[in-house]
């Protein structure tokens, strides 16, 4: 059932998967030992930056627009808690904890992503 040309397709696909895995792991590891900053973006404008490891009390952030999203932040993690958009992709993404994690609400053009940022103290010596 499989034919000769299929091998080219499979080869191409495998190369594509390998390259994308490599690229993503490079991106995720590029900011090790940094503070994790959750960035909330709405309509291509940054509306809030939160250092999620420094959050002690859980808090909720309301985003209103064409649709409404409720973002929940706890220590070390952040997620879309509720949304009234039709597809709920953002809510189903769940918790974001690692650098490079992101949740996107396309209908509302809202995005949460976690970026790394070098901490203010680079090296502590005694």
């Amino acid at each position, binding site marked *: 059932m*499989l*034919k000769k040309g*299929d091998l080219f397709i499979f080869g191409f*696909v495998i190369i594509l998967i390998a390259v*994308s895995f490599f690229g993503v792991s490079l991106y995720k590891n590029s900011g090790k030992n940094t503070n994790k900053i959750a960035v909330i973006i709405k309509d291509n404008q940054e509306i809030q930056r939160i250092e999620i490891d420094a959050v002690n009390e859980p808090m909720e952030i309301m985003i209103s627009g064409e649709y409404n999203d409720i973002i929940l932040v706890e220590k070390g993690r952040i997620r879309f808690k509720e949304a009234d958009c039709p597809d709920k992709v953002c809510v189903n993404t769940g918790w974001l904890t690692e650098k490079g994690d992101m949740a996107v609400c396309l209908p509302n*053009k809202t995005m949460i992503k976690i970026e790394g940022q070098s901490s203010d103290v680079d090296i502590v010596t005694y």
Partner: protein
Amino acid sequence: MNNVKKTILLGLFVSQALILSIVESWIPVPAPVPGVKLGLANIITVITIIFFGFREALAVVFVRCVLSSIFGGGGWMLFLFSVTGGILSAAVMSLLYKSGRDKFSITGISIAGAISHNIGQILVAAFFMKDLAVAVVLPVLLISGCIMGFFVGLVSSFLEGALRKTRIFD
């Protein structure tokens, strides 16, 4: 085949693709990233390419996307999201199909289509969010696209055999 018959058959294809995409939205997919879908409507795209051609497949994909965003809601963003993936995937599959049935199997063509669909969607998301970082979900999407493309291809080749026996396309 005369025009009336062609119009009726394409209309049937659109309605079946629409039903498949609605049924698909009821089936939860356990996946760690957004955007992983079964892609059942792709079966109809493959079948349209086989029995009609690229232009007809394009029409079926476009009308299906318009109707499914009307029925499913989601507005412009989700429409653009699905139509870009759909058109890219129909284009890639037609190209491979036209370049020779003896070279590529329906399964291989369908996998290529599923992956172009995923890449198209990432491009749209990256364009609208103005952030290439959305591509972090690409590895997972590519793998799920391969698996689903394989099954869609199997179903399509069985369906092709069954439809040929009915002789409705003669």
